[in-house]
């Protein structure tokens, strides 16, 4: 109204940077990954096991470390929420897609996932405990289904 550009508060600037960062992460990195399950594994891997803090060199370089951390935490929560409450049928499809992507031999992956349950660390921090339990439970069932269908395909 008075001809001056509207001033933006630091909080607004940070939330805009987080929005930009999220767009950047989705377009440059997550879009290249095959399916939501691969995205979840990738995002969980950007979190330090000891500190629980997220880090990403590219995002930190383009924005700041704290913006990168918020972007990764937000993306992690989004992908986890969409998978954790999705129907089991979809989760099985996503898991099969992840196994087919060739990150490990299917029999090895299935055996180690059933034995060690590494999927327990895929949940973001402070998420609803029942949703986290439901996710782990659904993965156990999905692994059993995928194992059965993989064995059946081996016998054919």
């Amino acid at each position, binding site marked *: 109204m008075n001809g001056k550009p509207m001033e933006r508060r630091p909080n607004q600037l940070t939330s805009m940077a987080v929005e930009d960062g999220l767009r950047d992460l989705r377009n440059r990195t997550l879009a290249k990954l095959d399916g939501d399950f691969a995205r979840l594994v990738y995002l969980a891997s950007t979190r330090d096991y000891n500190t629980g803090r997220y880090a990403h060199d590219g995002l930190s370089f383009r924005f700041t470390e704290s913006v990168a951390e918020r972007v990764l935490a937000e993306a992690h929560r989004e992908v986890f*929420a969409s998978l954790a*409450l999705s*129907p*089991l*049928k979809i989760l099985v499809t996503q898991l099969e897609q992840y196994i087919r992507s060739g990150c490990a031999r299917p029999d090895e992956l299935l055996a180690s996932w059933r034995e060690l349950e590494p999927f327990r660390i895929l949940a973001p921090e402070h998420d*609803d*405990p*029942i*949703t986290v*339990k*439901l996710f782990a*439970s*659904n993965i*156990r*069932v999905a692994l*059993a*289904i995928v194992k*059965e269908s993989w064995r059946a395909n081996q016998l054919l």
Partner: protein
Amino acid sequence: MTGALTLLAIGFLLIASLVYLLRRRGLEEEDVPWLRDEDSGIPSAHSEDHRKGQLDRIFGCEDWDFIRKSTSSRVQQLFLKERKGIALSWLSRLRREARTGMRLHVARVRASEELDPLAELRLAIDYYAFQAKCGLIAAILLLGGPMALRNMVGQAESLSNNLRGMLEAALKPDAFSQRTRVR
């Protein structure tokens, strides 16, 4: 005569329960997700969607239909065992939240000089009815086997709504502060 005595005994029991609750010391802090919001304690639209999604997933038929049609009996048993565990965890959390809400309410009531015994009695009845309903559903789950889980989404939702209504009534800041102002 016998009927009047029974009613008197029930009334006495309820009053004794209320006195026990009021005298109970040590407010145990437990994790109550929808009490974290400092403003109202009422869940947001996002958490409401999340709650509905969670209920559908745990108690709905969609996943069971998929499992029943396309997997072996071994996987079906695993699925039912897993879902039963999740359902019991969900119920146990609901009971814990109600207990915490009630303790918060009792702590506030203790500091109040304008106690409304009738409203407190009504709340105590609601609370024990809620706990009994939770116990009943847990018993159905445990005794009726995993198959009892099917089509329980309605009961689960009504239970969750009961808890919300009870906690909203017990912990609503405006209504409560007007009625229970400490002088």
